């Protein structure tokens, strides 16, 4: 296959960026999108040009490291209706000779570091504000000592599949991190271990995401439509319910 790419090139955080065209030849349809970028980078390196910087790690769709906006879709999905991570997107999803636009996540809270790499430290800050439970580490307790209802446990696990890739923020027209934060809130709010800090957590995490410059949620739904882990939009309502309850509770102050 031959692929024509238009890639966002930006030398550093402070430099001006622009879209640059590349022609990639010898692409196999079995390559992942990242392997196609590897192929281009090998070529650029041999030519003595600066290779394109992009984030990646496991390449199995479970680490949350990769992610670029492909033809306007966060992670890219070509003709498929199912959202996935960029590393799990294969070139067979594109037509031979196609022109593909590749851009970094664009959000105020995710500044570009170089080319397609953005700084997602803001997500770590949100987690630091309350995305954990404060228990003393020790030997694991007997599993049956803390019963967790099946329905809640399922919701917790569904929300816990969030890999923190940031596609929700990239896709949101407001640059809001609500789907990410609400996934963490729902994950912990559905489990017995998450209860002691439930209401102080939601207030702290929401306050932190606002401070970091993420936009506000207007319930458009783009986030859930691109989430590779299909975190449902109803987690946002879960966060809002907990936030409203926190207004009337001492531990939410």
């Amino acid at each position, binding site marked *: 296959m031959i692929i024509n790419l*238009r890639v*966002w090139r930006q030398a550093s955080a402070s430099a001006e960026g622009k*879209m640059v065209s590349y022609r990639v030849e010898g692409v196999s349809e079995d390559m992942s999108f990242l392997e196609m970028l590897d192929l281009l980078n090998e070529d650029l390196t041999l030519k003595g040009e600066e290779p394109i910087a992009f984030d990646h790690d496991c390449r199995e769709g479970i680490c949350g490291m990769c992610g670029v*906006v492909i*033809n*306007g*879709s966060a992670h890219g999905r070509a003709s498929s209706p199912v959202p996935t991570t960029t590393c799990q997107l294969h070139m067979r999803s594109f037509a031979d000779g196609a022109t593909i*636009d590749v*851009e970094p996540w*664009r*959000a*105020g*809270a995710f500044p570009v570091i170089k080319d397609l790499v953005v700084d997602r430290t803001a997500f770590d800050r949100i987690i630091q504000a309350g995305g954990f439970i404060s228990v003393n580490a020790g030997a694991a307790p007997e599993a049956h000592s803390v019963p967790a209802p099946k329905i809640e446990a399922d919701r917790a696990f569904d929300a816990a599949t969030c890999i923190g890739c940031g596609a929700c923020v990239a*896709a*949101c*027209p*407001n*640059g*809001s991190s609500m789907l990410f934060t609400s996934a963490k809130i729902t994950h912990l709010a559905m489990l017995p271990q998450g209860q002691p800090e439930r209401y102080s957590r939601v207030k702290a995490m929401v306050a932190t995401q*606002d401070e970091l*410059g*993420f*936009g*506000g*949620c*207007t*319930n*458009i*739904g*783009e986030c*859930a*439509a*691109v989430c590779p882990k299909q975190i*449902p*939009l*109803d987690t*946002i*309502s*879960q966060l*809002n*319910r907990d936030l*409203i309850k926190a207004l009337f509770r001492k531990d939410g102050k």
Partner: protein
Amino acid sequence: MALTGLIMVVFLLAHMYGNLKVFLGADAFDHYAHWLKGEILYPLVPEGWFIWIFRFVMLAAIAGHVYAAAVLSARNVSSRSSKYAHGHNHQQTYAARTMQWGGVILLIGLIFHLLQFTAQLVTTGFASGSEPYHMVIATFSQWWLVLAYAVWVFVVCLHVRHGVWSALTTLGANTSPSARAFLNGLAWVIAVVLFVGFMIMPVAVLFGWVQ
């Protein structure tokens, strides 16, 4: 944003219902209009007080809504200052995309609407101080005013279509995928009912079914 918006949606439904009184004739319609400004809730509150309490609540709702919208828009614009070279929407509806500017157009239309029918400073074919029924007939006998009104009501209903869903979701009602479908359906029903309900009267006047 959600609470003030829902207050206004409830008002719109009541306003639409009240407008339909026009089909009961001039006496019934004018009596209803005067009742709203006079006897309503009497003797719970002194005669004529309700309308001012009501106006205060509506004004507070509008002010709160506009203030929240301004704060939210300012934040959202700054958090998405750089745009994608290649844009693509998966989910976004036209109504959701136009909430901000639609809201501004809606507000301008509302100011005109109040100057026209409440303050009677801008008259459209009727003398200032006319009875409500006469104002309605005189205004909507002119096709271009019906058209302008239809465009405005459409903008309002578009705002309501995303607003009802968004407000209820913000208040925590979106509990599952089926709840999401229900809330979106509810928003559609309210928007369509409002559009049809508000447009029946002007169209009936225009075609001379009500005189």
